[in-house]
């Protein structure tokens, strides 16, 4: 239609739009297409379309599948419930009350997100198993709890609850105490006003963050693999892993299970979108207003203890366990004075060591991923939020789809897709394949941040620049870019932290001859050098946490992170 064509011309960014769409198709749709092909045609890896659907029938006919699917959903729900129980009170106390050391607690709750879940799990195992650190120090043995289904959920809650904490704080800050105060004028008690007014207003933001936790929980591999297997608790992700790492390899079975997982994540994701699009009081409330925080009074000490306890189990225990393991000369020597030494750290930092190379590879991959996803995410989001026309829907779908793609699925898809012999050039078996994998997995972070940022910017700011004589690209660069930059920096720092320790995809697609931090650690564990692995883990956590934190503190935006 003429109108549509003309509007396209107003934006004047057609080539850029198609470039971004093309890149996303390559990043997201291309590998996913091959997963679907693999699920249908088991021989696709041999460039053959023989025996279509045979693998699918076999995989779906497996009676264990039902149990795995049920376990996956159950785990997601348990983690969601646990995160809600822990994070909502924390968030409420943080925002609505005058809590001492507020910013410090925010920092503490950022840390769990920076500890790779599989490392945190190992830390917990080292702490709670018989003769673990807890028993060595206090005589208490927590193995019975840890190696159980609640134990799996517990460890996963600790690594995901910050998502909910920061969402609750952000939403409550936007909603504020105003509406609750109105209720009090009309006769509601403070508690009633909170339950009936303030909490319901914060519900959409809260529900969305809980669904995000659900999605994270059903995609997590390390924790259920390390803890759940012993409790006989198989989930879909471990099922996928079994099929691609146990002889005989069953790629089409893995692809079918992956698609099932993608389906589950998509349900969670669309539910989240629905909730947010229907009633999101956060955005209508506009800018956060100054909140009149209530004093805690007699409750100050108990509430502080609660915060300290949460910070201790979520942040201190795993970190201390990692550090203790890294510092011991021998594990069997235990926490004895003579058994401590720095040799694991010196081994990593010695000149030309594999550890150092791995660290450098991971850091440069992390920075590249952050820059690329930041740029791509911001542009994609710009076209989705501000664009018109049909192409926008495709872009929207492509930029959020990776939300529903577990790392292991992306990895298998990338190998299948990029190792086709007919491709003239391929990033396969170069470091770029890792970059592509990370970009695909992490793209949703910047997109989510950019969407929120662009929605907050009034369209007239853009119009004003155009009327003042700036072309679309200049407008993007001079006006919109700088305005979304702070949000994008937060998103990119998060991407950096996650990309520089990504494990699941790295193990599968790392090019030959290249080691990343995560594959290095994993290999050390495989070879029995737990201490060396933990020393690397600690170093990596330190670097990937400290770097973003320094930037964030400089920007005074810690709470923007999640």
């Amino acid at each position: 239609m003429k109108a549509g064509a003309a509007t396209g011309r107003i934006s004047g960014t057609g080539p850029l739009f198609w470039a971004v769409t093309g890149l996303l198709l390559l990043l997201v749709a291309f590998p996913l297409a091959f997963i679907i092909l693999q699920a249908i045609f088991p021989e696709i890896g041999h460039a053959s379309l023989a025996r279509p659907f045979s693998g699918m029938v076999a995989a779906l006919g497996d009676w264990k599948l039902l149990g795995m699917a049920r376990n996956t959903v159950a785990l997601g729900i348990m983690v969601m419930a646990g995160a809600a129980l822990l994070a909502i009170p924390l968030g409420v106390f943080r925002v609505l009350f005058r809590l001492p050391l507020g910013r410090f607690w925010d920092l503490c709750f950022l840390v769990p997100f920076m500890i790779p879940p599989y490392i945190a799990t190992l830390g917990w195992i080292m702490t709670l198993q018989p003769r673990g650190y807890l028993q060595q120090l206090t005589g208490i043995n927590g193995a019975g709890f840890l190696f159980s289904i609640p134990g799996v959920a517990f460890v996963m809650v600790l690594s995901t609850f910050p998502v909910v904490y920061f969402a609750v704080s952000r939403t409550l800050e936007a909603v504020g105490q105003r509406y609750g105060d109105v209720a009090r004028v009309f006769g509601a008690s403070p508690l009633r006003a909170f339950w009936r007014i303030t909490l319901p207003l914060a519900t959409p933001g809260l529900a969305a963050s809980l669904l995000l936790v659900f999605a994270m929980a059903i995609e997590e591999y390390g924790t259920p693999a390390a803890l759940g297997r012993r409790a006989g608790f198989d989930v879909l992700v471990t099922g996928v892993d079994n099929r691609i790492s146990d002889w005989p390899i069953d790629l089409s079975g893995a692809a079918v299970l992956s698609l099932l997982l993608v389906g589950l994540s998509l349900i969670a994701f669309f539910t989240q979108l629905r909730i947010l699009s229907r009633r999101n009081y956060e955005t209508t409330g506009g800018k956060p207003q100054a909140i009149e925080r209530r004093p805690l009074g007699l409750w100050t000490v108990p509430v502080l203890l609660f915060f300290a306890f949460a910070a201790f189990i979520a942040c201190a225990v795993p970190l201390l366990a990692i550090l203790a393991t890294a510092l011991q000369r021998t594990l069997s020597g235990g926490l004895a004075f003579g058994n401590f030494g720095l040799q694991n750290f010196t081994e990593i930092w010695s000149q030309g060591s594999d550890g150092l190379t791995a660290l450098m590879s991971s850091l440069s991959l992390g920075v590249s991923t952050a820059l690329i996803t930041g740029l791509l995410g911001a542009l994609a989001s710009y076209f989705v939020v501000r664009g018109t026309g049909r192409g926008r829907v495709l872009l929207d779908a492509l930029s959020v789809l990776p939300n529903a793609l577990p790392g292991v699925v992306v990895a298998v898809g990338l190998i299948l897709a990029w190792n086709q012999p007919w491709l003239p050039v391929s990033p396969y078996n170069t470091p770029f394949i890792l970059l592509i994998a990370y970009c695909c997995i992490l793209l949703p972070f910047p997109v989510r941040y950019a969407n929120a940022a662009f929605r907050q910017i009034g369209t007239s700011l853009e119009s004003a620049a155009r009327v003042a004589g700036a072309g679309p690209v200049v407008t993007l660069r001079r006006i919109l870019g700088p305005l979304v930059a702070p949000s994008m920096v937060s998103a990119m720092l998060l991407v950096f932290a996650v990309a520089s320790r990504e494990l699941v995809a790295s193990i599968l697609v790392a090019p030959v001859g290249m080691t990343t931090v995560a594959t290095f650690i994993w290999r050390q564990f495989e070879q029995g050098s737990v201490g060396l692995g933990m020393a690397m883990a600690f170093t990596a956590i330190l670097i990937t946490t400290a770097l973003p934190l320094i930037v964030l503190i400089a920007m005074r935006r810690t709470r923007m992170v999640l």
Partner: protein
Amino acid sequence: MLKKSLLSTLVIAGSLVSVAAHADITIYTAGPAGLIKKLTDGFTADTGIKTDVFQSTTGKVMARIEAEAANPVVDVLISASWDTANDFTQRGLLLPYTSPNAAKVPDFLKSETAVAQGISALGIVWNTKSGTPKPADWADLTRPEYKDLVNIPDPAQSGSSFELTASLVAKDGWDLFKKLNDNGAIIAGANADALNPVLQGAKAAVFGAVDYIAMGSQAKGESIEVIFPASGTVIAPRPMMIFKSSQHQDEARKFIDYVLSEKGQKEVAATYLMPARTDIPADRPLISDLKILPVDAGSIYPKRDETLATFAKTFGK
């Protein structure tokens, strides 16, 4: 901001390219990381042929080869399970090659298409500080002193564990495993998952751990010991093979020759694997020192699924 980030992305991307240096042959290995590094370094120093290495577990290496089947990347594969060599041979994917250096490798450790790099064996790994008596045979771990203190690597996740399980069952039936279960032994994932708790003392012993990893830890000062049971155990020769699809077959052959050379075999011995060549000394018990259980591959592999299912049922998984 756009320009700056574009620029720095390009710079970093450029530096990534330089990481991926061009290599002549690509080796996939499930072996110890330290060993392959020493072997390839020595090989490149001797021949000038550059190598690229992908090192992981046997399962993950296989997954990668499967996924890459349409366009193979691998030239040389070193697996931890002879079964994979048989499988690839049957599918006609391997290049027949007999290295001149394989003359001193016993016949049961080589075939037309594969030759052992080295050999590991399974044994009991026991924590000397665990306060339990030193076990001497598999059955000892069913005694009350080891109640709740035994880890068993999952035979579903490790080829050699499966062979051990199947061979013991073929010899004596399921009785041993039922007693282990009654005694609180648990299935603990792959080899590393089973071994690590023993290091810290959470468990006293691993039933059938890969010996060289434990010996390496012992050498680093961990208070553990590897015991080869009197009633016999299984060995896991680690086959090396060259793929027919390789574009660098000459270089690949030279690599096999190098690993089987005296120099190469000494490196193998230094990682506590048994060298494939009988004329290379090693600071550990050798095949001739061990009692080897008969493994009838022809009869146990067809029943793999059935055996694994019975095993899982025995341990209530």
